[in-house]
C-alpha cells in the first residue's frame, strides 16, 4: 500500500479499485457480528471458503466475512449479491447448496425468509419485513464491507467526504455544515454536536483532542459495536473530519476491551489509514496533521461518562468530576477535548458529502437524521435497526420487530438501559425522538429498546436495574453510593414479600435526593427507571404493600 499525497491520488486509487471489481461476480457475505459469531458463523464462513477452494472458484465467486448485517435474531446470516438475497440460520451443511445455486443464479428457497403467519416468502433484503421498514444510511454498508479491508470502504465511496472537506472546505465551513445539519449526539444526551465542536474549537489552548466514545456500557445496547466493528473506517473518517473542523491534532478511540474482533478491526483500520496517509502528517497534501490512539475501557459502566472516560485515557481511575468544568474546554490533561459517540461520528461523512439540507430532510423537526436502535427483550426479531428519527415506536415494535415473542402481549417498552425508563404499551404510537421520549419518561439514551411482555414484573425489573447500577457506582459521592443502596434494599424487600407501609413514600424521597445531589449523571439518573415505573405502573408497587387491596405477595409472576 502506497501513501497517497493528494485528493487526486485517492480518487485515482478508488477508480482503480472499482475497475478491478466485477459487479456481476457473485459475492457471498457471511456475517461475523457478535450474535452470528455466537451461533458459530465462523464455521459457516470456513465452509464457504473450503467449498470455493475445492471447486477452484476464486475468480467466479467471492466470499466475504463482514460485520453485523442487522437481523441478529436469525443468524448466522448470509447475504448474496447481486440481488441481496438473504439466507437465515445458515449452517455449514447448507453451504454446498448455496454455492451451487449462486453460480447458477438461482435461490435456495428453503433458506429464505418466510412470514411466520402467512408463510409468504421474501428473498431480497428490501422485501424482508425486518429490513424493508428501515432506512439504513449508517449500517447499510456493513454487508458490503470486509472490515479488515480499507479498499472495500473506498469502493463504497469511503473517504470521499474527507477529500471534499480537506480540498474544498475551510474548517469553519465544515463546522458550519454540521451546525446547520443540527446533528445531535447519539450517546444519550442529544446535545448538538456542532455547538460542542465550536466550544472546543474556540477554546484558547492550542492543543486539542477529539474522542470517540465507543464504550457502550448500556445494558442491551449493541449498535455501537455493530457499527464500529463492522465499518470502522466510517467512524474514523467522521473523526478525522471533526478534528479538521475543530483544529485537533490528536484523537482517541475509546472502546470495549472484551470484544477481540472489535479490537482487531479498529487496530487494523488505524494502521491501514496510516499507510494510505489518511492519518499522520500532511494528510492528502492538505497540511493537516492528525494521529489517533486506541484506548480500552476496563470493564466498568461509569467509564463511558465523559469526564470519567477522559480520566481513564490519562491512565487514572475513571472517577467523574462535577459538570461545571466542561470537558470541551478542559478535558484530557486539561486540554479542550471534544467527545462524541460512535454513531454521532459516523453521521459526519454523509453530512459533509450530501450536505446539511439533505440531512435535515430526514427525521423529525427537533431530531434529524436516522437513529440506530438495538432491539431486544421479549421481541420476535431482535437486532440492530436503523430508522428515521420520528418513526412511531409501533413501526419498531411490530413492523420491524414482529411483535412480542411466544404470542404474548406487550406490557411495556423500555429505553435507555439502567438510566432510561419504561412506558406502557398504550403509548406505542409515540414518535422516536429525543425530547418527546424524555418527556414521557423513557429517554432514548444510547438506543437500547427492550420489549417487556405481560409476564414481566415491573417491581423486579426496577430492582434488577438498581442492582446493576449499585454495582457500577464508583463510590466517590455519598448520595449515589448510599442512596442507590437504600433504594435497592427497599425494592428487594418488596420483591421478597417484606414490603411495609411507608416504603413507597421512602422510595419517593430517596429518588429525589439521589437525583438532585449526585455528582455525575450515573447517580442523577439512577432513579429514572423507577420514576417512570411509579408513574405508569404504581399499582404493581402498591400491591406489594400489606394492607393494600391486592395484598402483600411478592409473587406476581
Amino acid at each position: 500500500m502506497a501513501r497517497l499525497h493528494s485528493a487526486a491520488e485517492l480518487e485515482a486509487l478508488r477508480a482503480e479499485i472499482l475497475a478491478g471489481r466485477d459487479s456481476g461476480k457473485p459475492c457471498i457475505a457471511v456475517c461475523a457480528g457478535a450474535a452470528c459469531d455466537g451461533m458459530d458463523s465462523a464455521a459457516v464462513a470456513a465452509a464457504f471458503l473450503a467449498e470455493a477452494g475445492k471447486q477452484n472458484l476464486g475468480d467466479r465467486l467471492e466470499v466475504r466475512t463482514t460485520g453485523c448485517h442487522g437481523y441478529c435474531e436469525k443468524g448466522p446470516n448470509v447475504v448474496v449479491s447481486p440481488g441481496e438475497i438473504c439466507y437465515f440460520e445458515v449452517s455449514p451443511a447448507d453451504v454446498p447448496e448455496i454455492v451451487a445455486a449462486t453460480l447458477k443464479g438461482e435461490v435456495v428457497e428453503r433458506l429464505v425468509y418466510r412470514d411466520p403467519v402467512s408463510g409468504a416468502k421474501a428473498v431480497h433484503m428490501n422485501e424482508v419485513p425486518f429490513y424493508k421498514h428501515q432506512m439504513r444510511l449508517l449500517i447499510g454498508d456493513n454487508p458490503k464491507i470486509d472490515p479488515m479491508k480499507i479498499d472495500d470502504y473506498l469502493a463504497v465511496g469511503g473517504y470521499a467526504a474527507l477529500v471534499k472537506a480537506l480540498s474544498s472546505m475551510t474548517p469553519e465551513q465544515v463546522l458550519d455544515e454540521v451546525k446547520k445539519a443540527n446533528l445531535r449526539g447519539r450517546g444519550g444526551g442529544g446535545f448538538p454536536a456542532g455547538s460542542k465542536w465550536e466550544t472546543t474549537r474556540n477554546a484558547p489552548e492550542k492543543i486539542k483532542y477529539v474522542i470517540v466514545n465507543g464504550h457502550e456500557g448500556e445494558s442491551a445496547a449493541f449498535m455501537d459495536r455493530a457499527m464500529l466493528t463492522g465499518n470502522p473506517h466510517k467512524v474514523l473518517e467522521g473523526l478525522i473530519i471533526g478534528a479538521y473542523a475543530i483544529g485537533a491534532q490528536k484523537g482517541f478511540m475509546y472502546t470495549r476491551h472484551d470484544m477481540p474482533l472489535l479490537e482487531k478491526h479498529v487496530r487494523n483500520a488505524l494502521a491501514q489509514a496510516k499507510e494510505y496517509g489518511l492519518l499522520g502528517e500532511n494528510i492528502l497534501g492538505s497540511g493537516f496533521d492528525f494521529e489517533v490512539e486506541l484506548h480500552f475501557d476496563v470493564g466498568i459502566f461509569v467509564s463511558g461518562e465523559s469526564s470519567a472516560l477522559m480520566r481513564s485515557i490519562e491512565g487514572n481511575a475513571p472517577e467523574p468530576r462535577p459538570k461545571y468544568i466542561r470537558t470541551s474546554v478542559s478535558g484530557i490533561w486539561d486540554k479542550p477535548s471534544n467527545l462524541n459517540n460512535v454513531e454521532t461520528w459516523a453521521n459526519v461523512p454523509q453530512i459533509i458529502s450530501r450536505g446539511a439540507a439533505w440531512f435535515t430532510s430526514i427525521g423529525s423537526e427537533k431530531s434529524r437524521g436516522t437513529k440506530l436502535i438495538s432491539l431486544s427483550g421479549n421481541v420476535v426479531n431482535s437486532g440492530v435497526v436503523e430508522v428515521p428519527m420520528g418513526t412511531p415506536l409501533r413501526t419498531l415494535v411490530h413492523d420491524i420487530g414482529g411483535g412480542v415473542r411466544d404470542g404474548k402481549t406487550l406490557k411495556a417498552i423500555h429505553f435507555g438501559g439502567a438510566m432510561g425508563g419504561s412506558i406502557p404499551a398504550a403509548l406505542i404510537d409515540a414518535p422516536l425522538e429525543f425530547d418527546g421520549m424524555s418527556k414521557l419518561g423513557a429517554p432514548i439514551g444510547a438506543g437500547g429498546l427492550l420489549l417487556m411482555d405481560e409476564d414481566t414484573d415491573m417491581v423486579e425489573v426496577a430492582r434488577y436495574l438498581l442492582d446493576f447500577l449499585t454495582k457500577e457506582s464508583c463510590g466517590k459521592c455519598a448520595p449515589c453510593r448510599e442512596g442507590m443502596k437504600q433504594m435497592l434494599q427497599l425494592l428487594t424487600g418488596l420483591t421478597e414479600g417484606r414490603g411495609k407501609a411507608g416504603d413507597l413514600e421512602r422510595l419517593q424521597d430517596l429518588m429525589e435526593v439521589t437525583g438532585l445531589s449526585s455528582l455525575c449523571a450515573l447517580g442523577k439518573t439512577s432513579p429514572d427507571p423507577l420514576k417512570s415505573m411509579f408513574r405508569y405502573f404504581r399499582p404493581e408497587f402498591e400491591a406489594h404493600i400489606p394492607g393494600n387491596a391486592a395484598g402483600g405477595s411478592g409473587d406476581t409472576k
Partner: protein
Amino acid sequence: MNMMCEQKIDGIIEKYRGQPGSLIHALVEIQHENRWLPREVMHRVAEALEVPFAQVLQIASFYKTFSLTPKGRHEVHVCTGMTCHLRGAAKLLAKVEELTGLKDGETDAQARFTLETGACLGSCSIGPELIVDGRHYGRMTPDKAEDVLNRYE
C-alpha cells in the same frame, strides 16, 4: 507463572518503561497474558512506569477486569444483561452455580473454573448466553449448560 509468561510480562513492562500514562495499557496486557496480577508484578510495573505503588493498586482493584488472585483454567461467564435477564438468565446462572459449586467471582479448589457474571456482552439476540474462555454459547438453557461445561476439563 511459567518462563514464557514471565518473559512476556517483562516485555510488556519494558515497552511502557517511563510512561506513567500507559499504566492501564500495561496492566490490561499483563492481565490478558497472565490472567491475574501478582503483587510482585505490580511492584515492578510501579517501578518501571514511575508511578506510586498505591496508584497501581488503586487501578488494579477498581476495575473488574483485573484479578488479584489466580483464576481457574477456564473462565465461565454468564451474561446478566437486561435481555438475558428477561429471557431467563437467572435460572441459567442458578444451574451453573449448582454445577460448579461456585458463586460469582469464585474459583474452585482444583482451579478448573472461575465463575463470573456481567452485563452486557452485546449478543442480546442470542441470549441467555454462557461464555467459556471467550467462546459464546447462545440460546443456552439450564439443561444444555451441563453439556457445555463437561467439554472443559
